[in-house]
């Protein structure tokens, strides 16, 4: 009889410890997964959305084609020259 009581106490103690350990583990803070982030690179290929954004941007430009000379580029055959102006633009 005494022996069975002794084993019963041991059993209850072990079970209690098991319950306690389970509760502690459940309440312990979960270990977070580590994620690494990479900044977008200029070398990355464009996504479809980026491509679309770029196309929209080009279309949104104040398109000035109508203001380009309607006759197109004028071409002058020139072998003459002029005296230099005070302010000049030149190859630098």
């Amino acid at each position, binding site marked *: 009889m005494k022996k069975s009581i002794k084993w019963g106490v041991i059993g209850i103690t072990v079970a209690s410890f098991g319950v306690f350990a389970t509760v502690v583990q459940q309440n312990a803070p979960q270990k977070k997964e580590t994620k690494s982030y990479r900044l977008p690179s200029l070398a990355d290929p464009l996504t479809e959305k980026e491509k679309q954004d770029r196309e929209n941007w080009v279309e949104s430009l104040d398109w000035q084609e109508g203001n380009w000379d309607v006759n197109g580029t004028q071409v*002058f055959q020139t072998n*003459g020259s002029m005296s230099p102006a005070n302010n000049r633009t030149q190859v*630098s």
Partner: protein
Amino acid sequence: MMYTFRAMNSTIHLDSEKGQEDIQRLFRTMEQCASRFRMDNELAYINRAALYRPIYISKLMYDLLACAIDVAKKTDFVIHPFVGKAMCALGYDRSFSEKSGVSKQETEGFTQSPVELLGERWIIKTKPFQLDFGGFGKGFAADKAKHILQQQGVSKAMVNAGGDVSLIGRYTVGIAHPLQVNRDIAIIEVEHMSVATSGVGHRSWIEGESMRHHFVDGRTGRMAENGALQATVVAKTTVEAEVIAKLFCILSYNEAIHLVRAKFPHCAFFVYRRNEQLYVGGDVHNYLHHWTVAA
């Protein structure tokens, strides 16, 4: 009264009583920061920096680099500042006044940026490159100078950075003849615009039996050959004018027209080709008040 000083391998003329010290300081800073021919400046530091390590740079250099990368994307990498190695390979490895001609192997170009802008003045190199802003740096400085003068309330001024001209108010500007010294090929009258000229005449040299110049197609890293001797462009900013003029000197005429019309329609241009023909086009009505071509 014209105020004149030397900076960035060019003579800078400033037609303004106000802002003279500020403008001179700006050009000197640009020279110290971004000249390819100095070994002790920020540009050299970036060129030597290791790959895949963040680099902290000045705001001026960051803005310049960001602007250059925008231009590179817009021109499909025909023009970008990462061609320093190719320039050295072509023999343009010192300032032009010191050049004697050194021939080396040609190099590859870029079709994507070898540097990432991380923001807040941080960048990271992803491929080795040699920065060379060339005339782009001068155009950038001329635009900054114009901005400084406008902030100081100046209503009429001209900044002429060795031929790259930025204007506040209306001015008459001569376009230098590409082959005749001290002669002009056209006279234009413009207001609040910028005018820039690129060409092969002045900065070209002979190596062996071939003529070399400093125009490199950024996509291939090879010297461009397209028949244009000189291109002058009028646009809203000097950077834009400089870039468009370079496009006309690098791409074939039809390619250049296509790209300029699609991406840079706000301009007027004068392109002088080897056959003594001057092509005038673009938005000439809005960008030029008056223009005359030498007969």
